[in-house]
């Protein structure tokens, strides 16, 4: 049944390409239906009705298998439907390009949903590739600024990342001796320690490039700055989580091998946080700043992953995975909202150069409020989703600290905490420069209009999501209870 979540945007995308109906209406309708379905699923996601599986290739055995593998899939699906709907609603399509615009957005959404719903490793990979193609096209054709350069760069990087990843995945499957590519078969098998180390390296680099792990991060900021807003929202908000999701999903298979790379991973993630953090401080444009900040925040999710690797298993550090998932969700929502609002600023004032902006809060108080909320969320203000994730990540870093000398993960956590200061520096500077101070004449008429009611709906949805998860992190954490009890329940039921 879960295939419906993919089919709705997919069919709508093809319908739009074929010219059925008004592109915008079809897309909005499809995304809205998907949003309702995605949120409705929350109440019954454990029901077996959602799982489907049929073999599409027998040797090697590949299944089109979909369903909610665990709570992590569910949280990612919720994230995807939220961002997809708000991206469809908030974007402003250039005149005459509606069909390309809306079908691409829907395809990206369908690809992301497919990846998170796949319970087969091959389709998990393939759906992500499907989503990348329209992403590249949109940046290259409808982007702004240095769009061709940015598109070319992201294409090379991500294609390369994908190939390395695929090599790793193929190696993983062949080394595991599993007969199928299904997650459940793969995770039930085991890999020799020698092979694990090499596979782990391929996974870290392959997924790492897709997640903009240092030093493979330089594609991200220019791509997001050039991309049309909905594409930036969907890629930074949803697609980039694919890599982190994949690492968490496959981790048990290579838990020993990952430990060989722990030191390297810690260095790289700290570079993500501190090095890229400084790069972010030095940005002169709002969109570049946000793009870099998004790279920086990936470091925190990697930190949870590093804590997990050090502990050796999900059970040895039960906080790490939920922490990463909450932060992935929170980051996805907050960065999507920030990109959406930055696009609004660009439309209303004609610029995103920080030096040319100023005093917008007076003319556009609602915009200022929402941007402030999203910005505060992204720098980890309690009460908003990102804090819930970040504090859990930090706790996961100290989960196995017992009051002795600090271990490497604890030292990494402490250094990463300085990133909280860095993000406050660049975010408050940008907010100060954009919204506060004396008003600047941005338009010829010298008057900037505030957010209209139509724009408030998608922004409001994302803001509410940030508040709900910030105030009640259990709203997401309840899905993260490991399903160890589930089999016994079934057994009891059958008895």
């Amino acid at each position, binding site marked *: 049944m879960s295939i419906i979540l993919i089919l709705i945007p997919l069919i709508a995308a093809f319908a739009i390409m074929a010219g059925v109906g008004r592109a915008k209406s079809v897309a909005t309708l499809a995304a809205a239906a998907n949003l309702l379905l995605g949120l409705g699923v929350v109440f019954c996601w454990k029901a077996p009705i959602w799982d489907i599986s049929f073999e599409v290739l027998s040797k090697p055995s590949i299944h089109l298998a979909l369903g909610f593998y665990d709570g992590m899939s569910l949280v990612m699906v919720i994230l995807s439907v939220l961002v997809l709907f708000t991206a469809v609603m908030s974007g402003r399509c250039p005149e005459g390009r509606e069909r390309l615009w809306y079908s691409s957005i829907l395809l990206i959404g369908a690809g992301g949903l497919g990846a998170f719903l796949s319970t087969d490793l091959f389709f998990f990979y393939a759906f992500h590739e499907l989503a990348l193609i329209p992403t590249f096209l949109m940046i290259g*054709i409808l982007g702004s600024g240095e769009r061709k350069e940015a598109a070319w760069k992201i294409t*090379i990087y991500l294609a390369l990342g994908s190939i*390395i990843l695929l090599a790793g995945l193929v190696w993983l499957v062949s080394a595991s001796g599993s007969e199928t590519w299904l997650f459940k078969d793969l995770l039930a098998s085991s890999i020799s320690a020698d092979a694990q180390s090499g596979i782990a390296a391929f996974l870290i680099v392959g997924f790492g490039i897709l997640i903009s792990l240092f030093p493979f991060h330089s594609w991200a900021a220019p791509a997001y700055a050039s991309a049309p807003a909905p594409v930036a929202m969907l890629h930074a908000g949803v697609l980039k989580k694919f890599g982190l999701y994949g690492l968490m999903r496959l981790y048990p298979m290579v838990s020993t091998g990952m430990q060989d790379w722990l030191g390297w991973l810690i260095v790289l993630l700290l570079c993500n946080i501190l090095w890229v953090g400084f790069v972010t401080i030095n940005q002169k444009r709002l969109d570049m700043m946000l793009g870099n900040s998004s790279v920086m925040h990936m470091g925190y999710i990697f930190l949870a992953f590093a804590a997990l690797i050090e502990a050796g298993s999900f059970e040895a550090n039960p906080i790490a995975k939920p922490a990463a998932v909450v932060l992935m969700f929170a980051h996805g929502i907050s960065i999507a909202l920030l990109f959406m609002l930055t696009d609004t600023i660009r439309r209303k004032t004609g610029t995103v150069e920080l030096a040319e902006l100023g005093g917008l809060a007076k003319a556009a108080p609602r915009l200022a409020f929402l941007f402030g909320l999203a910005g505060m969320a992204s720098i980890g203000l*309690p009460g908003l989703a990102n*804090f819930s994730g970040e504090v859990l990540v930090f706790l996961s870093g100290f989960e196995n600290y017992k*009051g002795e000398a600090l271990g490497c993960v604890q030292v990494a956590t402490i250094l990463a905490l300085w990133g909280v200061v860095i993000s406050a520096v660049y975010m408050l500077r940008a907010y100060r420069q954009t919204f*506060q101070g004396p008003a600047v004449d941005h338009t010829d008429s010298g008057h900037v209009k505030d957010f209209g009611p139509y724009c408030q709906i998608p922004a409001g949805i994302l803001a509410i999501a940030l508040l709900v998860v910030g105030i009640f992190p259990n709203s997401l954490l309840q899905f993260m209870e490991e399903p160890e009890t589930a089999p016994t329940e079934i057994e009891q039921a059958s008895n």
Partner: protein
Amino acid sequence: MESIPWLILGLPLLTAAVIHLGLKKNQSLSALVSTCSAAVTLALTLVIVSKGSDLTGSFNWASIAGFNIEIGYEFSQMARGMMLVVTGVGFLVHLFSLAYMKEDSALARYFCGLSLFMFSMTGIVLATNFIMMFMFWELVGLSSYLLIGHWYQKDSAADAAKKAFLTNRIGDFGFMIGILMLWGITGSFTFSELATGLAGHPDHSVFFLGIAILCIFAGAMGKSAQAPLHVWLPDAMEGPTPVSALIHAATMVAAGVYMMARLFLALTPEGADLATLIPAFTGTTIAWIGAITSLLAALMATQQDDIKKILAYSTLSQLGYMVMAVGLLDPEAGMFHLFTHAWFKALLFLGSGAVIFACHHEQDIWKMGGLRKTMPITFGAFAIGTIALCGVPGTAGFFSKEHILESAAHSGQWVLFGIAALVACLTTFYMFRLFFVAFLGDARSENADHAKEVGLLMSAPLILLAIMAILSGWEFMGGKIAPLYKPFEFHPDAPAFIASVSAVVIGFLIAWKLYGSTKEDPLENKGVFKHFRNKFYIDEFYAKLVGYGQDTVAAFVHFFDELIINGLIVGGFSRAAGGFGRIFGRLQSGNLQGYAVLFGLGVLLVIYLTVFVS
């Protein structure tokens, strides 16, 4: 009864939300709703204080596999006294603001911020564990940011707000590390479990416990503006004056002291001595940071001309006093001074607000003068606040200051005792300088000449606070409602008593001699006083540090990022791409190998053809 604390916590948040979402258009209704909400929380707090029983309650905020983080409340004696300060001063400041801010065009936003602050501060006071405290800690930071930046169109206000937030973030960096370490050592965040947790892990490293406590103290240094993180507080005076009274004098800035007192009491099991549990360097470091802050701020205060800046430096100095008491492992003395200080410092700030209001937003004391005649109520209230702050015997400030001097003497740290006595002397000096110049003599400007006594909405809070400034230190009152009270014992030959009385007398006489009747500052720009006026150039130093340090590093890193990562590595990748073909050759499953290469190349080809050839 159990639901009342939830109401005290939740009502201000609800008020803030209602004002933001629904009442933005109706300025005066917003003000009224917010003030009523403050009145209700004060009434509810009084109900709980009068019952005098301890209350607790909680719910799970985040739970993972048997691990829970709770949001809850703990109405212990300490929390009751502190809540009385928060809601009491809070309500009076709301009342005062009704008159003070009535001309403001963003009244609704102002009161929304005040209600948000009341919510956050209540959360700190009632917190049952460190994570909850940290959350509300950051939220008071947010409300402080919003209220300092209330007039955000002024560059100075927007900059001050940002500075306050960032400086606090630096403190919170340490705070979070401390919380994490303490969690590792005791296995708990919950205050009520810290002592047992510590006893339950007897093999923990005492050294790391000391480091953890100092890291937590870094949070207190940010919030309570201890040197070298003190720079934000004087700048925070850019906010409206009632905000300065509530947040930057009486409550939020004292939260650091409250938090440290909670920590120290929580770590000490019944009947045990804290000094045996924590390493000696912890307390010494804290006490010295407090003493240095106290002295530096008092010196800076002697040469300020802005009435609010003088009070701000005085607040810094008094906070240093409290921190010193905490560092001397006498949190009771620190908390008692916090309690009395809240009333008289709020009084002084609101008094200065009344003066500023009457003088048409003139803040320079040299352009005031003669207010004794035109504003008799404000004059009287301000006089009471001044003597209470100086610690004239009989006032609340005397009792609490006495305890701090006593604990310094008791610990045998005579250098600290000397600093404390010197600060007491300086306090009297700069407060009477302010008092003589602003209130006595003749009016020195048009604005001061036309000053009129303020209306009842503003004078009533002054009168009530003046009463508290005297009585809150006496046993019949402070003994019942202070968060932690120590009875005063009169020993005319104790060093503390001699020092505090002579400090007041000497400070007063010097102030009288220099400023009793003068039209300009005789010390201005003379010798060492120039450095006091320029705040020892610490702000300039930080501006350089940020400018040359952080921003240069950022520019440098950015440059390298572009050059190396972007240039060399991307170039390297395209060279490396050829090598990957060989890696694929070694992989086993034949079918997929071709598939993979095709997939990757296909993507590239499609993009290339569509985007670049068209």
